[in-house]
């Protein structure tokens, strides 16, 4: 009797200790650690990249840029342009459904375009050309222009923040300055709201009724075929631990590992590095034109002579394999790349910078430089900026804060010593700054511009010309002039191009090269 009891107990103990859990699923789950945790779910309301990535999971777009950057139809089946280039007719392709089963209609698309255009600067610019946007029938809508513009496809196929995602009409009619509260899309994944635990994990499952295009996938375009059942975004904020978990097989994918830890990851035979964002990113310095002494163009010019790209790249990325010195506002590898206007600048010519400061009559006002401490790739930028600026003769008051605080503070126009700011540094995905319209920081419409509020009529005229131009060769010429103007008045400064691939386990296959990490086409071997 005792013997039997003993063995039963032993058996029970073994069963418990071996972790009898819910019956094992044959489900294929991709466990990913993204660069940030998802807290906001409205990709129109914010430009944050993590929300854009979320958008690409559950929403679809009318047009999409392929691997080469060419805009191809995605949700649109037929696209016609009238001879005078003023009437654009869009017809949706067959079989498009929302996650709740309802079919996608032209009304939904028109409402979505309007909401996107209200917030996005490219959309706003596009709308200045639009006379009317009307629904012709269930699947067709017409955009009537006042004058021709290349922004129609450029805008509707915009690859990065804000992406014109299509949402159901009832959702798209939410005020653009209020976050949406329903997350129904027509994209290849469904957002599992019940399983969403902010700060812990976000869950997506395959949308069975998604009808991919027939073309092969390329960039954001082509057929979006999902080969996994479930994708989980896990929030592991400790970078070291994320790598540890990847190596231990507890997760499959890390979107943006710190450069310093790459050797650790790549050294393991089960892990590989994959550069999905071939165009990389650009570090940017943004001065506040409304804060003395940055209202003086000579003082801003001094910055362009004080800085050099190498110091910033070395301090953040470190390994030359992952960065590129690119003296251009438009990233290297993009259509409008040019060095005109930046020759001889960004070379740390401290003497010239000091001269300019003297000419400008710089009185030693400390420059309030905001330093964000919690975003790993940005954390080392401000200290480098401070040291270079000081060598050039600036007095710098570097104030450390977390990114959220910085975001709140940069929207303030108060004087820097009373809650305002003089400067901060950030990073843009290359695809967001390929032309004068996409580049938010080039908007010099004074009060209507982005934080930093540059105010330059000349710049605005050039950008307007660019928007009106449809011929690519003429566009390039205007883009060059825009860069020269930007370097002269210093709307912002490009501080180097950098690249970062994802690290993933060897069995993760098929990730597409695109400016945002997308999870269709990926399979777990």
């Amino acid at each position, binding site marked *: 009797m005792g013997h039997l009891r003993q063995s039963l107990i032993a058996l029970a103990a073994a069963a418990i200790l071996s972790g009898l859990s819910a019956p094992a699923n044959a489900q294929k789950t991709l466990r990913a650690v993204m660069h940030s945790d998802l807290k906001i779910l409205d990709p129109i309301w914010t430009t944050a990249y993590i929300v854009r990535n979320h958008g690409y999971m559950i929403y679809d777009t009318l047009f999409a840029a392929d691997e080469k950057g060419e805009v191809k139809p995605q949700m649109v089946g037929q696209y016609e342009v009238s001879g005078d280039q003023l009437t654009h007719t869009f017809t949706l392709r067959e079989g498009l459904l929302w996650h709740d089963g309802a079919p996608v209609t032209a009304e939904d698309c028109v409402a979505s375009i309007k909401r996107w255009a209200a917030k996005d600067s490219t959309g706003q610019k596009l709308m200045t050309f639009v006379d009317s946007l009307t629904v012709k029938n269930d699947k067709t809508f017409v955009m009537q222009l006042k004058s021709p513009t290349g922004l129609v496809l450029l805008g509707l196929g915009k690859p990065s923040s804000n992406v014109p995602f299509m949402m159901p009409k009832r959702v798209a009619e939410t005020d653009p300055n209020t976050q949406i509260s329903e997350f129904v899309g027509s994209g290849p994944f469904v957002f599992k709201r019940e399983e969403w635990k902010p700060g812990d994990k976000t869950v997506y499952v395959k949308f069975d009724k998604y009808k991919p295009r027939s073309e092969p996938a390329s960039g954001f375009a082509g057929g979006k075929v999902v080969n996994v059942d479930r994708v989980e975004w896990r929030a592991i904020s*400790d*970078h070291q631990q994320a790598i540890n978990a990847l190596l231990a097989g507890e997760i499959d994918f890390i979107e943006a590992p710190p450069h*310093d830890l790459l050797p*650790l990851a790549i050294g393991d035979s089960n892990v590989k590095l994959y550069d999905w964002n071939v165009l990389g990113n650009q570090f940017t310095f943004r001065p506040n034109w409304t804060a003395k002494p940055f209202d003086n163009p000579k003082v801003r010019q001094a910055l362009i002579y004080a800085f050099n790209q190498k110091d910033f790249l070395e*301090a953040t990325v470190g390994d030359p394999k992952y960065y590129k010195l690119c003296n251009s506002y438009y990233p290297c590898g993009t259509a409008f790349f040019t060095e005109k206007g930046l020759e001889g600048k960004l070379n740390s010519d401290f003497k010239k910078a000091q001269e300019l400061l003297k000419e400008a009559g710089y009185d030693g006002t400390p420059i309030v430089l905001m330093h964000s401490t919690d975003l790993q790739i940005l954390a080392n930028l401000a200290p*480098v900026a401070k040291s270079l600026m000081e060598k050039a003769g600036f007095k710098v008051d570097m*104030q*450390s804060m977390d990114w959220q605080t910085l975001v709140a503070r940069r929207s303030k126009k108060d004087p820097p010593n009373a809650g305002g700011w003089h400067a901060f540094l950030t990073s843009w995905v290359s695809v967001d700054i390929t032309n004068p319209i996409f580049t938010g920081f080039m908007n010099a419409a004074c009060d209507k511009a982005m934080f930093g509020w540059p105010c330059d009529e000349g710049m605005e005229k050039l950008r307007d010309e660019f928007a009106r131009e449809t011929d690519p060769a003429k566009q390039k010429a205007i883009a060059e002039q825009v860069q020269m103007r930007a370097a002269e008045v210093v709307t912002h400064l490009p501080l180097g191009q950098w690249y970062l691939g994802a690290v993933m386990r060897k069995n993760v296959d098929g990730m597409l090269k695109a400016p945002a990490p997308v999870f269709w086409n990926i399979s777990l071997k």
Partner: protein
Amino acid sequence: MSIETLPAELVEGPPRRGRSLRLAARNSSVIIGTLIVVVLALLGVLAPLLDTLPPSEINPVFRNKKPGTERSIRDSSGEEKKYVHRFGTDSLGRDVYSRVLYGARVSLIIGVTVAVISVAIGLVIGLVAGYVRWLDGSIMRIMDGLMAIPTILLAMGVVSLSRAGLIAVVIAIVIPEIPRVVRLVRSIVLSIREEPYVEAAITVGTPTPLLLVRHVLPNTVAPLIVHGTFICASAILIEAALSFLGVGIPPETPTWGNIMAEGRSLFRVYPHNIFYPGLFLALAVLAINMLGDGLRDTLDPRFAKRV
């Protein structure tokens, strides 16, 4: 009287005058502890003279170098000489050895400052609470409230009230420590009031300030010194935790805590960022705890081990 006091302060009897400092000075824990602390403090004070580089000098080209890396630098007279990064460099190219030595200053200053300020403020409030009966209740309720809020969370909250900086962090750590000091002082005051010689002094009409100075204060000295040393140790650790959570002192001013916090994600590839400051920090905290132990054993007979 309630037993809401520190573990070692179970009042078994009225406190007597402590034994002399000479006894304390002969206790081995006190000697070793003090020695280590003094050495660390000296390292901090003499940092500029100990072959160090400016602790916030960034050098992106030399980032993440292992300990022992040599390089040539131009010194103030323009001459080139060799410099060895004994503890390696961090992710911005700053010399870890220099930062650790300069960090000794800030970390120890934080410890001492927090201890002194919280003891001073706590003493005053505790005396008031013990003496002024009608304020006692409300003061103690507020102290209970403050104590109920977890230290780290309170500190995080206070730091987020203003810019992160030395003063903010000191205030943030002082505030949660005050209630315990208040309790300690108050319990001493209350127990002394019961003493016959104090009652006699009151009957005779001794003014309160004189009472406080002559009878109460001397009895608080020993326990407060002991408690103060433990606060000092605790403050250094809390500062490290705050730096780890991202709300500590900004990295231009090195502290052992923020050197470790900055280097934490490189632990497996460049462990020197955590190892060296961690070693110094552990040593300092250990020494201060030993010092406190020794002082408690000798100065405060209530806690003397009767073995």
